[in-house]
């Protein structure tokens, strides 16, 4: 299990390859990568991601441990960036390795659902006309009810 909270960018391909190079018993590897989307108006200058150092690592570790306890997983990876990002930049990724695909998929979705609403990150969209904190979506909170 690896949890990384970092300002610098990460290489999805290198991370995926390193993660998948683990135990041969893991027949199924799932990755999810979040990418900064531009605004509908196409004028996103910067996406600023604030976080709560200390709590962030604790919250992500707890979510990952919970996933390891609920599904039969060989390994879990969570990387989340903070700081200033641009449209097209990769914000975060999770990866799960399991014997069976069902466990790998469900655990990855669980990680994403909890990470969205329970890890202390806040996004701010900065355009030439101002800055707006991204509002939490009801559907993200609702997504937790299925677990």
């Amino acid at each position: 299990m690896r949890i990384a909270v970092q300002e610098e960018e990460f290489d999805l391909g290198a991370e995926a390859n390193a993660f998948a190079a683990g135990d041969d018993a893991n027949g199924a590897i799932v990755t999810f990568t979040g990418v900064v989307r531009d605004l509908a108006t196409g004028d996103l200058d910067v996406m600023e991601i604030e976080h709560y150092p200390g709590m962030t690592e604790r919250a992500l570790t707890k979510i990952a441990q919970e996933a390891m306890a609920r599904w039969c997983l060989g390994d879990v990876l969570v990387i989340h960036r903070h700081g200033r990002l641009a449209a097209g930049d990769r914000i975060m990724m999770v990866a799960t390795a399991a014997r069976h695909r069902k466990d790998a998929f469900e655990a990855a979705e669980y990680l994403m659902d909890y990470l969205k609403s329970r890890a202390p990150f806040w996004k701010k969209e900065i355009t030439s006309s101002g800055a707006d904190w991204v509002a939490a979506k009801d559907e993200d909170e609702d997504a937790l009810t299925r677990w």
Partner: protein
Amino acid sequence: MDVLYFAWVRERIGLPKERIETQAATVSDLVAELSAREDRYAAAFADLSALRVALDQELSDFDASLTGVREVAFFPPMTGG
């Protein structure tokens, strides 16, 4: 106790962190105490349903006790991922 503010709560109150000496028994008591202090606190805490609180880096509730707590953080709902 250390009190931390994040995102728009931090912006509205105008600082990321402060040290507070308080006798507040619960988070709600602390909120009332801070809100009475200055308008910027009252503005930040106007709608508690739009806020979350963490005690010693664990998500908690506004009616939770502050006994033994060293760090309180206020922030809006998270938007990671």
